[in-house]
């Protein structure tokens, strides 16, 4: 079995450079690679292109990288809830490409499946379609959207083993499996790292072949963005 384990986030991101293109898993603050983000902020790499469904909040997630002006371009589907993001966008410091959420997920999937492009109806007739090839299948128009080309994918899993196999928990799965498949180098941080052979192969969500480096994460905050509850009675 090939051992994919590295000591921690600093070692895992050692070759992420200024100008790299990164994918970051998560939906809102759920299932984000917290340890990798902290290490990137510490390392201070700049001019990053970040592909991520959201851009964090002011003081957590990708918001921490925005605060340090490390991000040149965000490719996302929804970027509300972040005042610093808004400021950088309006001042022109930050480039933003907004794309439909399903298109974002499927462009990751295409990369992981070795397919150069997909056809989707999302965005036909809107400004998202500008400059894109349109093909008609069975009487309906579809946009051609290219597979992403990312240098690194940073994902967060619940459990992982030394061979890089990953299991996600609940809705923190979201974009993580498709991004894990899509990176030229995929880095997985996990809440619990176990020996290969411990996980039931039938329960593995992401096969280790897609994962290049894995490490045991630490100090997960797992911040809740909207705490909603109902009364007991």
């Amino acid at each position: 079995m090939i051992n994919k384990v590295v000591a921690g986030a600093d070692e895992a991101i050692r070759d992420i450079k200024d100008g790299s293109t990164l994918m970051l898993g998560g939906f809102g603050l759920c299932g984000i690679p917290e340890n990798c983000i902290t290490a990137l902020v510490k390392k201070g790499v700049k001019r990053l292109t970040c592909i991520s469904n959201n851009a964090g909040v002011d003081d957590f997630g990708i918001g921490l990288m925005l605060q340090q002006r490390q991000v040149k371009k965000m490719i996302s589907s929804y970027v509300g809830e972040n005042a610093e993001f808004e400021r950088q966008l309006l001042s022109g410091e930050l480039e933003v490409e907004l794309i439909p959420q399903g298109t974002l997920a499927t462009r990751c999937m295409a990369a992981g499946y070795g397919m150069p492009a997909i056809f989707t109806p999302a965005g036909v007739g809107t400004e998202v379609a500008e400059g894109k090839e349109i093909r008609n299948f069975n009487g309906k128009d579809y946009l051609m959207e290219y597979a992403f080309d990312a240098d690194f994918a940073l994902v967060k899993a619940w459990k992982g083993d030394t061979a890089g196999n990953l299991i996600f928990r609940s809705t923190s799965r979201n974009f993580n499996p498709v991004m894990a498949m899509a990176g030229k180098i995929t880095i997985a941080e996990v809440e619990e790292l176990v020996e290969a052979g411990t996980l039931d192969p039938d329960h593995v969500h992401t096969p280790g072949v897609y994962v290049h480096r894995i490490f045991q994460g630490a100090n997960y905050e797992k911040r809740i963005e909207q705490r909603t509850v109902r009364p007991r009675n």
Partner: protein
Amino acid sequence: MLDKNGIAKRIAKEIRDGYYVNLGIGIPTLVANFIPDGINVVLQSENGLLGMGPFPFEGEEDADLINAGKQTITTLPGSSIFDSAMSFGMIRSQKIDLTILGAMEVSENGDIANWKIPGKMVKGMGGAMDLVASAKNIIVAMQHVNKAGESKLLPKCSLPLTGVNCIRKVVTELAVLDILPEGGFKLIERAPGVSVDYIKQVTAGRLFADDGAPEMILD
């Protein structure tokens, strides 16, 4: 005239037994509170869940279990979890029977705008463009006029579009309207106490109401 819960309650009457339903943020989320007894539906949350349940009891929140509005939620018996690509796969392949979402503008040919106001903050389309491009049955839940008092039911949308020729039904605080295949809003029902004339006055797009329209029955 209906309040937000009234709009949600009226929309809930469109839900049929056995539907898989995607609810957008805002008024659509409230629809879950009014699903009639005896109707079994499965709610999809596009971040990767079928079988969304109510908010958790205090102290039982799970940071790993949220809906597309980033709210803490629960799962129900029979629910399932999947990744974002599969989530939009089931949307694109029309496995979801009904989509309910909000809008800033709807046009008389069924165009919808709900993701961007140029010059102001742009939050993004999230999953809305995927949903409106693929869903077979979409209901828009919105206020009839905007905060400036201008009609949101227009001959043509003025804001950047989310989707083209895709909306067939709109429910507002004043009325239920169908969008006709040949274009135009057809008044189907009026909210209690609201006159046809008033609805005409606040509908900028073509409104067909020649044969009148009954008042809604909510209960």
